[in-house]
């Protein structure tokens, strides 16, 4: 019998997330013979449009339709999934803010192996899956062996697998709601209240053509002045990676990344930024990326078009001076 793989579909406003098609590719790499089922949870017409959308790509779609999931929270969803998922199945979940919330507990409740943040799969041998992960923000990679013969929950890094748009599924949508909610709705101890939208800052970096973006390599708040000076010389705006916001040196609205803003500048200067995938995930479109970092193996050099291996504290003032000379 073909191995059963389930792909959890994240969606918003009635549209499936980009990761939906990436999970098909991931499932195919995990086991080319697997039968892949999309699992979609939500409420009403928005849920239906997501189901119809993914049914054209997946062989089968399971849906859980209840007002309790009008806003999907992992504390409500997790017990429902445990009720419908078969023992020993393989469950793929995107490794994002939702997957990180849902998946560790799901693996315990399914008594399945948990493998997180996989970026590639290299085959199954004797029930053991060989997967690739990254550690230390991508400075090193590891091969991880997991015994998946009795089931597994695997989170997959968004963007690691190229979306599989080729397959045309049969559009078979199966309503699993009754089975899922039999025994009552859980999650009473954790009550969703509301979404608080991110504050809008003084500069909207999503509209900038030139971004001069600074990371941990700046070392000290006082050194930020040189970043502002370079941005001014280039005619761009200053943005940053997470550690700069955590240190409260710049406001959250200037943060590029999956938990910050998604930006599409023409030119993106990554200065002293290591290039964690959460940061790179905030760069969309066809930006020309210039990375300057003193660590030649910083992962940012993987995504940059042009790299310079140097300490930004030495390099930036010289660059700014030369640009200013040029402009007279």
């Amino acid at each position, binding site marked *: 019998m073909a191995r059963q793989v389930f792909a959890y579909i994240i969606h918003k406003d009635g549209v499936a997330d980009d990761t939906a098609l990436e999970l098909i590719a991931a499932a195919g790499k995990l086991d080319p013979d697997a039968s892949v089922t999309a699992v979609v949870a939500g409420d009403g017409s928005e849920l239906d449009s997501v189901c119809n959308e993914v049914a054209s790509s997946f062989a089968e779609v399971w849906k859980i339709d209840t007002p309790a999931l009008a806003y999907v929270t992992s504390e409500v969803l997790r017990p429902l999934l445990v009720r419908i998922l078969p023992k020993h199945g393989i469950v793929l979940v995107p490794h994002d803010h939702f997957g990180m919330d849902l998946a560790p507990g799901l693996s315990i409740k399914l008594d399945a192996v948990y493998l997180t943040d996989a970026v590639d799969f290299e085959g199954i041998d004797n029930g053991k899956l060989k997967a690739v992960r990254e550690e230390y923000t991508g400075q090193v990679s590891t091969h991880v062996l997991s015994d998946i013969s009795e089931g597994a929950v695997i989170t997959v890094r968004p963007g690691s697998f190229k979306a599989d748009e080729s397959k045309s599924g049969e559009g078979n949508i199966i309503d699993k709601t009754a089975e899922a909610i039999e025994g009552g709705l859980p999650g009473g101890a954790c009550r969703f209240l509301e979404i608080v939208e991110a504050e809008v800052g003084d500069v909207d970096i999503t509209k900038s053509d030139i971004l001069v973006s600074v990371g941990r390599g700046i070392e000290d708040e006082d050194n930020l002045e040189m970043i502002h000076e370079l941005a001014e010389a280039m005619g761009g705006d200053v943005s940053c990676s997470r550690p700069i916001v955590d240190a409260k040196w710049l406001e959250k609205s200037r943060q590029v990344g999956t938990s910050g803003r998604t930006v599409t500048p023409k030119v993106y200067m990554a200065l002293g930024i290591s290039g964690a995938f959460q940061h790179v995930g905030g760069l969309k479109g066809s930006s020309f990326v210039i990375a300057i970092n003193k660590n030649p*193996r910083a992962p940012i050099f993987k995504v940059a078009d042009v790299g310079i291996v140097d300490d930004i504290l030495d390099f930036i003032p010289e660059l700014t001076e030369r640009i200013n000379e040029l402009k007279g």
Partner: protein
Amino acid sequence: MEILVCVKRVPDTSENEIEVNRDGTDIERDDLVYSVNEWDNYAVEEAIRIRDRVGGSVTVVSVGDEEAEEVVRREMAMGADKGILLSDDAFEGSDGRGIAAILKAEVKRGNYDLVLTGAQADDGAAQVGGMLAAMLDWPFASLVNFIEFVDDKKIKVGREIAGGNQEMYEIDLPCVLSIQTGINEPRYVSIRGIRKVASLEIPVHTARDLGISPGSVGEAGAKTKCLDYFVPELGDGAQILEGSTDEIIDKLIELLKAKGGIK
């Protein structure tokens, strides 16, 4: 409010470039600088702030050897009231599930209202908090960047989600929360502060103390295993500009002009 914070000793990535060792079995650990996992440090700071507002005590716990004790002591110097080290040969080589099982046993020995972990670690998988909550059958929220005490039965919690937005929840105690960086500004720990706690005893709890059968954790109980370490391929990667700083700047300025990077 009785709060337990789980912390881990990790190589400090802001102090080290991480490289693979010669035979690819591990990272190169000679000369590494270690520290407390950054996320965990925010969790300890948050626990101390909650205690200072509503009373109670903060206990810091770590699974590891005597070197992990230094990390626990550092967090006590920050202001945690108690430290506990969970240490046993049987714990070595535990995967995330094994670590969660060991921590669960310690949680069960106490009378905690709130258990905090870091949301992730640089050498980890963002898994222990969520697993621990599921093992305890307690509610869980990850990537927490806001905590407000409502009353002694519940708290209000914010989770960081995409785009800098925040999900707000009301959660009944006891619960497990994994803490995101940036939730607060962790206090500085002075040498003097560390000296003050240098002689405090940190009890060590073993597998036997915790009632854990040795085969269920450690390498024997691990269902995931790291085979090797390697340097990721750079793929196409960046074109690295070389030469003197002046030459590099010449090339860079030409590129910036061509790509619209100078207005």
